């Protein structure tokens, strides 16, 4: 039995599904990331778990106990929001001590626990300062400390890093993961950024349009997206999507995109799932496209439209037969805008989606 079970949860607003038949389970000591674009239902789901919103259908089971009708303050769950309310007129210490004082704990016990959690989060130096002097990361950690100090059985983190600068967000997401390893906190973490979800979470669930589209570890989701929507969502930089006619010939799969042929050897199970002569959606990430300055048997000729040097990698937009292909340039290859290059699609990295259901076939 899982630590927390979210069972068949649905919620409608004005007749439209905000969440549809959500099933998730969280093990003790893990962080489950929920990644999805804005408006996909992440916050609603967390609020249902916290008891702040009542689901239309389904139940929430915590350690075997159905808590669907339990009021929020009796659930033993703490929630940290995107911009957590930290009292500006109180010191870091008083902010963190606040929930313990509400519980009427003795002052020496409060002090002990505040210092413990401040030590853990690396914020002892700001305990006697007012929030106006905190950096973004410190502010967020004070909010987190206030949630952790009550020893919640489950922590709900709703886009806690969203309003932070990019650099601090990178540090904080690693730091959260290290914290989780250290103290084994059980948490649900939401974010609109799939890569942040992958870093923080033990597992990640992809929530799009109120439905869970896939759950798994990052590499699984990245390498085997369940459907085109997931592939598009997790692909940063953006996915290249083509339409291609597919033909089967002996043990070979041929793909024809515009006037370019690609082929690869495939196994029997895949042969049975592909209909020869039909058009499919072909998706390739920019890192699956090889660019060179000389032609090869399976390459397309193209013209460089835009080069974006990003330091560790260089991203190029290349016009081929009136479609724009985005590719990561190999390190060391220097090309400029307007240059003619040759583009090769990595046939082994190519993903094939059904044009109607958009479900991945290969």
């Amino acid at each position, binding site marked *: 039995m899982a630590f927390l079970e979210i069972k068949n949860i649905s919620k409608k607003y004005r007749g439209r599904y905000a969440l549809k038949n959500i099933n998730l389970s969280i093990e003790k000591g893990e962080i489950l990331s929920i990644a999805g*674009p*804005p408006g996909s239902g992440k916050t609603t789901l967390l609020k249902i778990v916290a008891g702040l919103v009542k689901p239309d259908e389904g139940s929430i089971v915590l350690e075997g106990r159905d808590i669907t009708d339990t009021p929020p303050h009796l659930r033993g769950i703490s929630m940290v929001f995107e911009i957590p309310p930290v009292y500006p007129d109180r010191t870091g210490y008083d902010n963190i001590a606040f929930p313990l004082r509400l519980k009427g704990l003795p002052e020496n016990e409060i002090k002990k626990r505040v210092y413990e959690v401040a030590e853990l989060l690396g914020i002892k130096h700001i305990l006697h300062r007012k929030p106006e002097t905190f950096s*973004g990361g410190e502010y967020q950690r004070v909010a987190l400390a206030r949630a952790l100090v009550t020893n919640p059985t489950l922590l709900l983190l709703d886009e806690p890093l969203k309003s932070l*600068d*990019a*650099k*601090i967000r*990178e*540090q904080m*997401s*690693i730091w959260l*993961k*290290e914290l989780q*390893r250290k103290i084994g906190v059980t948490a649900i973490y939401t974010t*609109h*950024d*799939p*890569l942040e979800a*992958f*870093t923080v979470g033990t597992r990640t669930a992809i929530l799009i349009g109120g439905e869970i589209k896939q759950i798994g570890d*990052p*590499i699984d989701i*990245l*390498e085997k997206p369940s459907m085109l929507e997931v592939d598009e*969502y997790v*692909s*940063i*930089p*953006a996915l290249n999507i083509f339409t291609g006619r597919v033909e089967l010939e002996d043990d070979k799969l041929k793909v024809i995109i515009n006037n370019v042929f690609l082929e690869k050897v495939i196994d029997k199970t895949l042969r049975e799932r592909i209909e020869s002569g039909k058009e499919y959606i072909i998706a390739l*990430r920019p*890192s699956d496209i090889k660019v060179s300055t000389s032609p090869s048997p399976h390459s397309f000729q193209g013209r460089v*439209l*835009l080069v*974006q*040097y*990003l*330091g*560790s*990698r260089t*991203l190029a*937009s290349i016009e081929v037969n009136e479609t724009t292909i985005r590719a*990561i340039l190999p390190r060391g290859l220097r090309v400029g*805008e307007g240059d003619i290059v040759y583009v090769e699609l990595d046939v082994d990295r190519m993903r094939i989606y059904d044009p109607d259901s958009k479900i991945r076939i290969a």
Partner: protein
Amino acid sequence: MKKVKLEVKNITKRFGDLLAVNNVSFEVYEGETFTLLGPSGCGKTTTLRIIAGLEKPDKGRVFIGGRDVTDVPPRERNVCLVFQEYAVFPHMTVYDNIAFGLKARKEPEELIARRVREVAELLGLTSVLNTKASKVGLSEKQRIALGRCLVVEPEILLLDEPLTLADAKIRETMRRELRRLQRELKITMIYVTHDQLEAMMLSDRIAVMNAGRLLQVGTPREIYEKPKNLFVAYFIGSPTINLIEGKLVRKDGKLVLEKEGLVLDATKLLEEAKGVGKIIGREIVIGIRPEDIQIDPSGHGVWKGEVELFEVSGDQLIVHIKLAEETKIRAMAPFSLRLRTGDIVGVAINPDKVHVFDRKTGERIDLLSIGEA
């Protein structure tokens, strides 16, 4: 010959006790995208507002096209500040939103119609011109905000973090669109952001700021490959550069970094570098970018360490490797390298990719130039 469009000369601005902008000078060339980049509170927005004329500097001058505009009011500077998408008037049509600036100037109706249509065409807004602004998507709203400025043909376009509200996906598209558009129009653009990746994607040149000071101006490549100091090295690049500090000493024929009893052999990294003799005995910081480190699962390389943690970055893994108790580095690895937590791996590093900084001043030490000097 590049023509200077904007010159900011020794600008200083104080807000009470806070020195928001500290003696900042730079030039922006005609037709380039120039980005002011730095963390919250570094002074980038104040600098932009001084250029727009919305703040008056305590000291220093601002020149646009050679003309001293320091005391010229904002509307007479011929610059336009693009506000965020939420500044679009929702009850007006897209057409009226874009036409706003021209109508305010009481331009003739047919000129307005022509300019609005041209700009709408350029921004891909033609089909929604008669739609209420409240009915269009975020990406369109962003383009409307931009269109409002383009239509008045300013000499310089100023943008203050216009993409912060958009989600990752829209942001990526907008960065590409904005870059393409700027190239097409050859407009001079000054952009403000805290996001280094955004700065790299959009800019011809970047000015890195911290705590009111301008630390380095250069192309994305110059800033990435030759950061002038520790802050720039740290701030540019994701995942962040690995920084290892210590005193460089010669011990038993080896070059080692010493710090609080910990010793890290740096012989293979530094022995070939010209001028290394002159930094022996000094407190230094070595910087190595994660993508310049290759992991060898069989344990060979410059150093050895234990795999501690993984992150995922799109198409690669970021592997955290513990070299010693307080010394950890991050390296990139393909998914196919099946590593597990606890594995002992070697790391190979190309000595040419090693950056060296002075620990006290934070300034870059160019070993080659020391050798030549």
